[in-house]
């Protein structure tokens, strides 16, 4: 298994290089740094001097791939490709447009992002699986039918409405919790309750339906009939047999997102003014801070690959038939 994991980790390298090249093409080849400078400075004020100053400030004044004016290895390292793209592999993201170090900013903002995302993930998973099991237990009854209708209705509502509606109802009308903001330590709880509750609610419709389909597929298999035939109660069948055997499809969808929890939720963090990575990303997009967006793309894809490897490991843990070789 160790050899397998090493191989998988090595396989991640070409993918990361691909991501890196793709972002490089998107950010530097589709538009030259001159184009970006002209837009950032403002088309009206875009004098050649202003553009040049913008480029020098951000280090975009270098050649793309090869610097003939430099000497030695600096011919390759003193280029846009090396300084802006390749340096990311060493987690050196440079600084944002406001001059702050991106890597440090990311480290500081991971905490608040996780404080929202982790409870949301766990509560959402728990709520969705238990409700799906409930619907499967009452399958082909009115409860099941209306449960599914409710799920479809809930997933037809944009998450924006959940957030806006929740903020209005709970914070404004009932004044139960502050409308937005963040504090450190235990004090954060009162800021976190509402965003977590809203995120769970917004996601529960589609996930209940998804788990219900998985369980229903599992419940029509022969071993379930055998389990019932030997006299097990329906509850025992559901929890001991169906839930256990449905773990593989559940893990396939779930484990891959665990590392991405660090990235935070764009919408929730931005609406509730939580200083996490999600709001950092949104601010960067709105301010067109390309360096931050590039850094987040790199980290996101790295975490995705970690998620894929974790998924493989989790298969081994829940299913003795799976061996990684």
């Amino acid at each position, binding site marked *: 298994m160790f050899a397998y994991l090493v191989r998988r980790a090595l396989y991640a390298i*070409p*993918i*990361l290089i*691909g*991501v890196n090249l*793709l*972002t490089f093409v*998107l*950010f530097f080849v*589709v*538009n030259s740094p001159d*184009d*970006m400078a*002209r*837009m950032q400075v403002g*088309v009206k004020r875009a004098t050649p001097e202003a553009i040049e100053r913008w480029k020098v400030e951000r280090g975009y004044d270098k050649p793309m791939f090869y610097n003939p004016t430099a000497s030695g290895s600096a011919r390759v390292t003193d280029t846009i490709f090396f300084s802006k793209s390749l340096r990311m592999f060493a987690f050196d993201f440079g600084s944002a447009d406001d001059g702050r170090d991106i890597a440090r900013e990311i480290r500081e903002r991971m905490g608040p992002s996780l404080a929202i995302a982790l409870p949301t993930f766990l509560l959402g998973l728990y709520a969705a699986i238990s409700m799906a099991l409930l619907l499967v237990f009452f399958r082909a009854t009115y409860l099941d039918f209306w449960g599914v209708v409710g799920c*479809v*209705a809930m*997933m*037809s*509502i*944009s*998450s*924006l*409405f959940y957030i*806006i509606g929740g903020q*209005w109802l709970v914070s404004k009308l009932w004044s139960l919790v502050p409308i937005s903001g963040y504090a450190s330590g235990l004090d954060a709880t009162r800021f976190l309750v509402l965003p977590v509750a809203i995120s769970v609610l917004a996601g529960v419709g589609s996930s209940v339906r998804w788990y219900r389909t998985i369980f229903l597929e599992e419940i029509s298999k022969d071993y379930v009939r055998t389990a019932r035939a030997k006299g097990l109660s329906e509850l025992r069948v559901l929890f001991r047999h169906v839930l256990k055997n449905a773990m593989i499809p559940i893990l396939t969808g779930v484990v891959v997102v665990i590392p*991405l929890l660090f*990235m935070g939720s*764009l*919408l929730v963090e*931005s609406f509730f003014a939580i200083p996490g990575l999600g709001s950092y*990303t*949104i601010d960067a*997009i*709105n301010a*067109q801070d*390309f360096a931050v*967006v*590039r850094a*987040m*793309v790199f980290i*996101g*894809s790295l975490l*995705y*690959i970690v998620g894929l490897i974790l998924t493989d490991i989790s298969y081994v843990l829940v299913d003795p038939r799976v061996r990684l070789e």
Partner: protein
Amino acid sequence: MGMSFQPVILWTDALLFLLLLACGLAALHVRSTEPLRDAWRKVGRRPTGMAAATVLGAFVLVGLLDSLHYRPRLPELPAAADASISAAAARKGEAVYSSEVLSALDVLLAPLRLQTEKTYSAPFAFTLYQRETVQAPGGGQQRIYPRLVHGAAHLGDPEAARGGDVALRTLSALGMAAAAWAVAFLIAVWRVVRSERLAWGVAVPALLRGRTVLAWRAVLATLAVLLVIGSAWATLAPHYHVFGTDKVGQDVLYLALKSVRTALVIGTITTLVMMPFAVALGIAAGYLGGWVDDAVQYVYTVLNAIPGVLLIAAAVLMMQVVIDTHPQWFDTAAQRSDARLLALCFILGITSWTGLARLLRGEALKLRELEYVQAARAFGASTAAILRRHILPNVMHIVLIALVMDFSGLVLAEAVLSYVGIGVDPTTISFGTMINMARAELAREPMVWWSLAAAFVFMFALVLAANLFADVVRDAFDPRRS
């Protein structure tokens, strides 16, 4: 002398009508292919599916009307104003067209489009929502709620007369709706009589009890609701702002109806542009295997590895730079915002084809081992012929299911992306831009809730109908769900 208008075909218009044409051709193909006809009949038998299809049909009608674009001709200017370019052109006898691009829907909704107020007003209001200082008739100043220019302007004493007026108009709308519904009912009965070979006296009760082969009762019930709403709007909207007005005084109902096209474009064109890639690469990877499979898998793992929003953000930011630095490409503002809409469809397509490609690859992998494909290979059929004749038709149900399943997700994504600032052009009317603008209004006292309510109602109806329809289509076409 030119025409009184100049037709404008935006890129998304062309693609929408191309899609309509493709649907027409597909329908002809379905009619002549027994298994496909059976599967669609299964869809037709489900009341939820037919009700959802009726609602979707209404949205599509609005969207298509809004896709017939033109530029109205400007009135000829007097020769004295020869300093302007348009006057110079007019002297040469050439027609001059407005730079504003309108659509057939704009013509139908002319009263809603043109009757703008000064600023916010509540649904059915006769005054603005804010007090304003005006000169009192006897001198001095007064703080009053000024009357609206158009909303309830026909009433002398709106306070007293409004209730009765609205009721009366609604009543006449009900009459209109009933008449239109009766026609639809007769057409439905006639269809049942013809297709099921029943006598008229038998067909009517069968239809009313929901015992027809196709779920006509669900269609007629949905149609009744739609007709009542539609005719109520048609009679009330010229005299009242049914959903109020927004910050610059535009009718919110008009904005909501205009948003429908944007949602439909995002929901359908995206899948349309990504489908050829997904189908070609997915099938090739699954059937050919080897290095092709490796290459395709590599590409989609790389694309999947980048979080969707970030990839979209990066691409949209870059595309906006291209659009901003090349203003000479676009004649009108409408063409520029259309370019951004189309580009957004492409970007969403590029980020979302991987899911479909993976499904198709898996299916092609299974199909290549089946006997009939092996037999075709043994007979010496070329790879291209096998892919076209044997593999492609047998994966089309997956493509169809993906097309309908993706629609609702894309409509919802548009709203979120527009909120993040990487959606449609801010001048394009869409649910996302509506919600985005309404967000700031919630903080006002008293609250401006109507734009948000209108966006919610329209989006919920559209997405719910799309979700229900997608479920029914999947049940009918997925062989694993029988």
